[in-house]
C-alpha cells in the first residue's frame, strides 16, 4: 500500500486515489493534421520505465484533484508530488 502525498491534502493512503498512468503526454494541437503514426504514438505508446516515473493520480475520495507523482517502479519510493502546470522536479539522480 502506498502512502501518497496529495499536494492539497497531505499524505493519504493509496485506496483513496485513482491512478492516471504516465504523466505529461500532450495531445497534438491539431489532431486532423498529425499522421496516423504520431496519433498512435499519442494514444497508445508509453515509456513504461523500470525506475523513476512521472505519473498522474487523482484524489478520488478526497479533494478530487489531479496531480503528478515522481515514483520509482521497483522500490515504489515516492520522491515528489507536484500540481499540474507546476515546474517538473528533476528525477532523483538526474538533472532532467
Amino acid at each position, binding site marked *: *500500500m*502506498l502512502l501518497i502525498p496529495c499536494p492539497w491534502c497531505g499524505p493519504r*493512503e*493509496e*485506496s483513496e486515489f*485513482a*491512478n492516471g*498512468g*504516465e504523466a505529461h503526454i500532450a495531445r497534438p494541437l491539431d489532431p486532423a493534421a498529425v499522421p*496516423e*503514426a504520431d496519433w*498512435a*504514438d499519442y*494514444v*497508445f*505508446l*508509453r*515509456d*513504461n*520505465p*523500470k525506475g523513476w*516515473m512521472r*505519473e498522474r493520480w487523482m484524489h478520488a475520495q478526497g479533494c478530487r484533484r489531479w496531480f503528478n507523482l515522481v*515514483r520509482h*517502479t*521497483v*522500490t*515504489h519510493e515516492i520522491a515528489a508530488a507536484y500540481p499540474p502546470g507546476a515546474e517538473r522536479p528533476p528525477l532523483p539522480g538526474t538533472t532532467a
Partner: protein
Amino acid sequence: MQRFSFFQLALNALDRHRAWPAYWRDAQPRDAYDVVVVGAGGHGLATAYYLAKNHGITNVAVLEKGWLGGGNTGRNTTIIRSNYLWDESARLYEHSLKLWEGLSADLNLNVMLSQRGVLNLAHTLHDVREGVRRVQANRLNGIDGEWLSPEEVREFCPIIDIDARRRHPVLGATLQRRGGVARHDAVAWGYARAADARGVDIIQNCEVTGIDVAGGRVTGVQTTRGAIKAGKVALVGAGHSSVLAGMAGFRLPVQSHPLQALVSEPIKPVLDCVVMSNAVHVYVSQSDKGELVMGAGIDAFNSYAQRGSFHVVEHQMGALLELFPIFSRLRMMRTWAGIVDVCPDASPIIGRTPVDGLFLNCGWGTGGFKATPGSGWVFAHTVATGEPHPLNAPFSLDRFTTGALIDEHGAAAVAH
C-alpha cells in the same frame, strides 16, 4: 532424452529413484546462434521447442535472467479456456486448447491438464446478455460453450450462494466444459526438457542487457555472460517487454502492472470446477493439494516489483466471500505477484518489429498461460519464416496504428 514410462518408473524404483537424469543440460552460452530467444517462461520455451520440432531450427538459445519458469509462468493461477468473444482471439486460444489436449503425450511429461470446466458468472442483466452472446459466438467458432441458469449453476457448483438477495446475485453463467487448469511448473519443465532434447541451449542466470542493431537489422545481444551473435532474436519477456524494446530503440503500447494471487490452507475437496466472476473480480479453483488458488485484479499503478498493495487482495477476498460464504473461516497461506504486460485492447502482440530479424511476443497481460502452446506454435512460425502465421497475423504491433484493435477488455469475461 530418457523417455518417461511405466517401465522406467518401475526400473528406477529398484535403486530408489536415484538415477533419474536431469531434465535439461546446464548449457553454457556459445558465441553465436541462429535464433536467440529472450525469456525462459512458458512462451519462450514453447517457441524454442516448436522452432526445433516444426521448423527444424535447433541452433537456438533461450536466455533467462533468473530461473526458468520463475516469471509469470510460475506465478499464475493456471486457468485455461478458449471462450473468447472475437473471432481472432477465439481461433488463437482454441488452437492453443487443442494443443493442450495432446500436450502431455507430445512432451512426454504430465502437465496435469484437468478439464474440470470453467464458469464465468453473470451478476447483472448486462452480464447475462454479454454471456449469452459470447456462448453463441463461441459455438459459431466451433468452441464448446453453454449458458446455465442460476439453478443449473448451483447444480454444477453446489457451494455457490445463488440467493437473489445477495449484493451480487448469480443470474446465470457461461460454462466451457473443456476449460480447466494445468500444472504451471510442469509446462515450463516439459517444454524445456523437450527443447533441450532437440539441441536447444537453455541458459539461466543470463540477463540480456543490450540488443545489437546494425543497419536496421539485429545482429546479436549483450548479456551478463558476454556478447552473443544471433541471426534472429525473439523477445518473450512478458512484464519486461518495454525494457527489452527500449534496448532496440522503440516503444510499446504495453504497461507493466503487478497482478496478485494467493492460496489458502489446504482443505478437503469442495470445489471441482473453476469459477470466475468479471463483475466482482474473483477467480478461484482448488488445487490437488486442497488449497484454494485465487487471483485478484491488477494493481492500478505501473510496477516492476512483483509486489502489490494489500487493499487489492482485500477487495478480491470480499468478492470471494460474497459468492462463497462457506470460505469465511479459511486462512490464507501465501500471496505473491507477477509483473504483467497489459495491452490497451487486452490482446497480445505477436509478430515483427521495426527492426529486421527482431520479433516480439508480449502483451499477454493477465491471461497468457492458457495460450502457452499456441503462442509458441505461431511465434515459432513467425520467427522461422519471417511472416506471421495466419492465426497471429491480426495480432501485429501495427494494429495500434491502423486501428484494427482486438478489444477483449470487456468482451472476453475476466482476462485470465
